[in-house]
């Protein structure tokens, strides 16, 4: 296996060398605890404050509206539970295609006496803002909708949903872990009250993320302890992580538009190349409202994991829409919510392109996938029997 092609950027990304370089001094040189008042602590605090300012600037919000957390999952948990527990009870609106970090947090709230509505999406994975308006009840305390879906890349009509939320006075949380740094967002114009974003999805380090909390949003801390992050999230701050995250965010802001065009063209090349040579394949997601680098394909009659394995043996990293872990496989719940028939949904494969992706990579993937799908289909046709 000589060639390595990484098409799983929605799962994680390499830390950008500039971000890593900027982080390095914060491990063994500037190592103070940012809560300490002496010079060592102040140096750490300055890097932390500066990181907060840089990320806030990129989101065009105020620095004290940014709370650092340990990951997208924590940001989502914090947003949802923090707002709900501040109210004590009420109704939460979300969608059927959220990331598990949102779904499981809302489900947990249901075990605590809250109620929830999981809105459907259309066959493109798109939420109808009118559905949100119809779902709002007098006791609705939160609307949580992802910016873009990690599996199929569909970007939601955030501004329209935000306007509805604002009109009803309901806080609006956006899980922007896959969105921020990939497509343009205007937090304020979109009426967003809480926004989750994460380092490792945009060439920053793992283990660091943020939650934007619009000033005045009523919420409580869910991780208790010291008075860090203005008492909103206890725990010694991960200074190196923040510095790397901040740099990664700045680099994305700088490169995003150009990269979107380049990566979008490569994604089209992939889809064209495959559709021309493989029968019974379809592309999931929205034709225009989508992340530039995400291509979710389904091959009828073929199980995704066998494609993932076949490509892996060629040095190509993609991910299965459905994952068979601990003995139970479901077709991707996202594709099911989109109404994709199960025999298709079981064969979905996500390709997520990124900074390092080249045209040669794409051609190599096409060359590899065509005979693989053919072999999997012709020698093993259960459906045909």
């Amino acid at each position, binding site marked *: 296996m000589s060639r390595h092609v990484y098409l799983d950027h929605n799962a994680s990304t390499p830390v950008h060398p500039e971000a890593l370089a900027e982080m390095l001094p914060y491990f063994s040189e500037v190592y103070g605890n940012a809560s300490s008042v002496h010079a060592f602590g102040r140096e750490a605090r300055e890097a932390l404050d500066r990181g907060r300012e840089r990320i806030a600037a990129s989101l065009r919000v105020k620095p004290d509206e940014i709370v650092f957390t340990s990951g997208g999952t924590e940001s989502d948990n914090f947003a949802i539970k923090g707002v709900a527990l501040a109210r004590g009870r009420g109704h939460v609106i979300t969608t059927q295609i959220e990331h598990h970090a949102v779904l499981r947090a809302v489900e947990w709230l249901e075990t605590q006496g809250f109620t929830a509505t999981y809105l459907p999406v259309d066959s493109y994975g798109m939420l109808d803002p009118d559905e949100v308006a119809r779902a709002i009840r007098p006791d609705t305390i939160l609307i949580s909708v992802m910016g873009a879906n990690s599996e199929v890349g569909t970007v939601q009509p955030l501004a329209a949903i935000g306007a509805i939320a604002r009109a009803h006075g309901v806080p609006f949380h956006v899980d922007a872990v896959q969105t921020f740094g990939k497509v343009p967002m205007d937090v304020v114009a979109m009426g967003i009250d809480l926004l989750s974003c994460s380092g490792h999805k945009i060439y920053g380090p793992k283990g660091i993320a943020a939650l934007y909390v619009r000033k005045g949003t009523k919420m409580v801390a869910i991780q208790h302890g010291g008075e860090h992050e203005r008492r909103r999230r206890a725990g010694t701050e991960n200074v190196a992580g923040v510095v790397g995250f901040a740099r990664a965010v700045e680099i994305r802001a700088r490169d995003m538009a150009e990269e979107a065009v380049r990566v979008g063209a490569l994604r089209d090349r992939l889809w064209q190349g495959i559709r021309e040579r493989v029968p019974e394949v379809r592309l999931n997601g929205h034709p225009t409202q989508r992340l530039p680098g995400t291509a979710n394909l389904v091959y009828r009659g073929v*199980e995704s994991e*066998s494609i993932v*394995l076949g490509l892996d043996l060629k040095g190509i990293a993609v991910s299965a829409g459905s994952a*068979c872990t601990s*003995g139970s496989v479901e077709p991707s719940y996202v594709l099911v919510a989109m109404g994709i028939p199960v025999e298709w949904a079981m064969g979905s494969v996500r390709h997520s392109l990124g900074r390092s992706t080249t045209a040669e990579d794409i051609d190599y993937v096409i060359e590899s996938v065509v005979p693989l799908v053919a072999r999997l289909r012709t020698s*093993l046709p*259960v*459906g045909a029997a």
Partner: protein
Amino acid sequence: MRYSPTLVDHFLHPRNAGLMREPDAVGEDEYAGCGDLARFFLRVREGRAAEVRFQTYGCGPTIAAASAGSELAAGRAVTDLAELGAQEIEHALEGLPEDRKHAADVVAGALRAAARDYLGRRNGDREGGAGNV
């Protein structure tokens, strides 16, 4: 690699994959809750599996397990195959990760079902025949 070289080899080059015309027996198994499915066809000569073919739908390990299962079944007594355990399949693949043990289960189950299908038909014949005696 999560998988043994033997498993990978079976996955990349499955032996005995495909349909069989007019088989002496057919058996199928599905993994509950999981989409994985295997179907085996046997041609039986003198109580032994003279020819084995399979179809399967599932993740890589299931495909590999079916291929390995078809090889180890060939030439074996059908009565023997009717009691085949999943461990034998797993052994032939040089191990399976914990979360992929079902690959061996579903393949062993399908082979047992095929063998029992054969034994059931024969019994049926005999019983039918016995009625004529």
